[in-house]
């Protein structure tokens, strides 16, 4: 099939999926399923940002749940007792998440991977402790009710579309980032720091920027999450949640956008489809993570791709390098670039 038609087919398929997803509140069976779909979207807002950090730049942040709780509490406090307009509160939540990302990332991103991972874990524990200790601010153990958004986003459907909007924005943004030089820089940082440094990539600045960005998305996701849950307590934001975010990315495949998106959807929906699975969910996340790391570190998406290709009997194609030798020789001789 000629390339142009292939792209068109792809575009049509993509548009169809988009339409289906946007119209979800209408064809979904009941508000419970709408709730799960909204939850997937909310998680994706955070995971989409975290994907740049963990999937592309390779910085293992297991404590991102702390930034989620910062966003949730910020939104609950500002839009609730302080009466801010919800849109403003969401922006503030995102900004606060980004600020916390900066505070956490600045000292710890220059450290080796394990140190950084432990620092994020420790920071998420601190945030949990502070949420509990500062009773007057956060309600302590009793927690806080989280207000909804302004109309038209107040209803369950409205909230879903708001989530869809923001998730779409995050997806579009990260997809563009990864297509350009930034994306290559991130992958270089992940796979070979020394080579990246040698080619002039400012390692710390790159990592810090994506980490702060992931803080912003986590803050926004926190606000959405809180509104969806309608009530938050410190118990809601446990370490296992940070692990869950992480597993979604790894299972989906590092270095891909659609992979983690599918991973998020599947892993969120799975415990809902089968009640016994909910009980074993943390155990299964560990097993899945281990299996993926050992067998398919590129993620299940890639594994599917290669197995489908192998079944079809396609040989792995490589892009042939086919330079115009005469032109190249002439350029070398004359000393100019063509």
């Amino acid at each position, binding site marked *: 099939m000629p390339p142009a038609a292939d792209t068109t087919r*792809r575009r049509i398929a993509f548009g169809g999926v988009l339409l289906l997803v946007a119209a979800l509140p209408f064809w979904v069976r009941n508000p419970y399923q709408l709730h799960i779909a909204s939850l997937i979207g909310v998680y994706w807002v955070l995971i989409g940002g975290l994907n740049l950090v963990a999937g592309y730049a390779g910085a293992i942040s297991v404590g991102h749940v702390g930034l989620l709780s910062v966003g949730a509490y910020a939104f609950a406090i500002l839009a609730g007792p302080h009466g801010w307009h919800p849109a403003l509160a969401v922006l503030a939540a995102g900004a606060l998440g980004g600020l916390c990302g900066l505070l956490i990332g600045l000292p710890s991103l220059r450290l080796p991977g394990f140190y950084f991972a432990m620092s994020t874990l420790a920071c998420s524990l601190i945030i949990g402790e502070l949420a509990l200790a500062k009773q007057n601010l956060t309600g302590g153990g009793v927690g806080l009710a989280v207000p909804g958004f302004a109309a038209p986003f107040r209803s369950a459907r409205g909230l879903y579309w708001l989530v869809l909007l923001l998730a779409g924005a995050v997806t579009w943004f990260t997809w563009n980032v990864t297509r350009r030089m930034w994306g290559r820089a991130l992958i270089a940082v992940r796979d070979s720091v020394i080579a990246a440094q040698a080619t002039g990539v400012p390692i710390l600045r790159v990592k810090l920027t994506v980490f702060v960005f992931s803080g912003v998305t986590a803050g926004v996701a926190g606000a959405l999450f809180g509104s969806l*849950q309608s009530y938050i307590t410190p118990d809601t934001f446990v370490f296992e949640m940070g692990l869950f975010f992480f597993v979604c990315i790894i299972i989906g495949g590092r270095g891909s956008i659609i992979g983690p998106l599918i991973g998020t959807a599947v892993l969120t929906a799975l415990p809902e489809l089968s*009640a016994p699975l909910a009980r074993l969910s943390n155990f299964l996340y560990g097993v899945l993570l281990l299996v993926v790391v050992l067998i398919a570190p590129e993620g299940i998406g890639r594994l599917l791709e290669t197995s489908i290709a192998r079944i079809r009997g396609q040989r792995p194609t490589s892009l042939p390098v086919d330079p115009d030798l005469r032109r190249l020789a002439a350029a070398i001789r004359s000393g100019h670039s063509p």
Partner: protein
Amino acid sequence: MKLRCDRSGLGVIFAVMGALLPNLSTTAWAKDKESIRIGWLSSLTGPQSTSAIAENKGVEFAVDEINRAGGINGRKLELVTRDTVSDPKTAVNFAKQLIFEEKVVLIIGPVNSGESLATIPVVAKEGIPNIIIGTVDELVDADKYPRAFRPINTNRQWIEAANDYALNVLRRKNVAILGDTTGYGASTAKAATSALEKQGIKPVYSALIDQNKTDLTDELNKARAAGADVIMPWSGNTGFMARIVNARGDMGWSVPIVGHPTVMAAPLRKLVNKPTYLDNTFAAGYSSMTYDDKGRLPATTKTLQEKIRPRLGDGEIAYSFWWVALGYDTVKLAEHAIRSAGGTDPAALQKALEDTRNFPGVYATYGYGPKERNGFSDKNIVINQANSFKDGVYRAAPR
């Protein structure tokens, strides 16, 4: 970067959507012989599971008993159980699933305050009646959650009974309050402190301690140095309570402990260094779960124990029996509401429960009102002696 693995990706997306799409739900039976679906949100696994498992036994037994007697007006009860894994997010998801997919007419639970805080607004928004089992005072509100009714006591009732015993019976004045750093422990300790202050007593020592802290001798030493003459611990964590009791015993400090029922929980007997450490320890308990001076149980408690004993396994009951009785009562309360309302219409159920006065249960007697959603009356609470545990029930503390 191209939209990689879009074909396999699309396939997976469609698979997930397909799973969420219309599942096979029950087709409409003849309406009057349709079973009554009751949702049960319980944390059967996870850190808070001990009480939930015991309550579950009571709930399931009550449902079986009612069904064996023919159900309610010929309609059988169908219990739809969901294990919330002690996680508020799972609890919210399952609450919505129960309401929208399983189409239950009433929800019992969740069992813990942490989960209840999250699910009660969600259930209330859909107008589904909710019988709740968390003790945190804020859970119940006749205006915000008109269809949420609570049969279990409130934290306030435990706190007031314990305070009364410590201050008026034991005649102590210098109180040391210890709480753990979980949501429940911290908020209960705070409530206990303000209850004391309302009576004009300021605690001489007050601390929130991480529940995994390995040794509490420091804190108790500080309490002793501050002149405390009674320790009042407020926590739902058995390990934490055990460490308090152990530290007091190891120090040889003969000060009474009066506090949360967990301090007299059965597992503590194995966690304390010496059985004598449990002397001089008292906790809030229930008149229905207390032996009288002749060692006899109240009649209703004895009846339930005998009926349900085959299901509880061999040997003596090694956990607090009131959990079982509470579970049993929640279903009986639901049955009473459905019978009085003549059906499962939510507004009628609400009215039926509001009109309930002196409904006799095993665990307690319940009464509600148009503005009253806490059904457990103060007089049902007594103070028990921790080391008197036998077969799920205690003896009263000396007065």
